[in-house]
């Protein structure tokens, strides 16, 4: 049951973000892609990443060599939530990922964080997808 909730949220978010990015020709949305950030010695596989069109050169051979503009992680179980809102958030802030979203299908909520002065601040709206409205459990 938990797995299906996460998978539903994943497919839904991926579809919505991809559609929005295509409509606005703003960039590329990729699922579960290896992101390698050399200067921070970090290699992660976020659930979804977005790279702005102008920076699409960092996407090479199905990998991202550099900092994506948005990382989305989806909670797979309640204990996973603490990691995404703790250690993972710190990692992405240290890597200077401009936006970080945590989608939580169990709480039917999504948190958006925008990097301000090297730290994440929770935000109502995304800077990258300002008009996007996503309902996590309408599948």
């Amino acid at each position: 049951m938990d797995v299906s909730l996460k998978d539903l949220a994943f497919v839904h978010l991926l579809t919505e973000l991809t559609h929005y990015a295509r409509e606005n020709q703003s960039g590329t949305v990729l699922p579960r892609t290896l992101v390698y950030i050399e200067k921070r010695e970090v290699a992660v596989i976020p659930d979804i990443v977005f790279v702005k069109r102008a920076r699409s050169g960092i996407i090479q051979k199905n990998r991202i060599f550099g900092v994506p503009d948005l990382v989305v992680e989806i909670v797979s179980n309640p204990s996973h939530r603490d990691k995404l809102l703790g250690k993972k958030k710190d990692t992405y802030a240290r890597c200077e990922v401009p936006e970080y979203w945590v989608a939580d299908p169990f709480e039917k909520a999504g948190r958006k964080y925008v990097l301000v002065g090297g730290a994440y601040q929770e935000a109502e709206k995304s800077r990258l997808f300002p008009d996007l409205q996503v309902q996590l459990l309408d599948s």
Partner: protein
Amino acid sequence: MEMIPKAEPQKIPIQVFEESIPNDGKWEIEEGRLLFSDNEMRKVILMLIGQIGLKKLIEILPHESKNELERLLKAEYR
């Protein structure tokens, strides 16, 4: 539920497998450290050693590591 490694290889019960997959199935690293919690690390290591068995573990360890392991075990049981 977690594996208790024995000398010989064991099958992994499906429940152990489900409970031992670390970090939502993602192998990620930061500054040379896997992004697993201590508990995730313990479970996955026990599962892997349980699968191959202690004999195989000792077989694949480099000579230097075997000496270290022997020293540590002697200290543990002194």
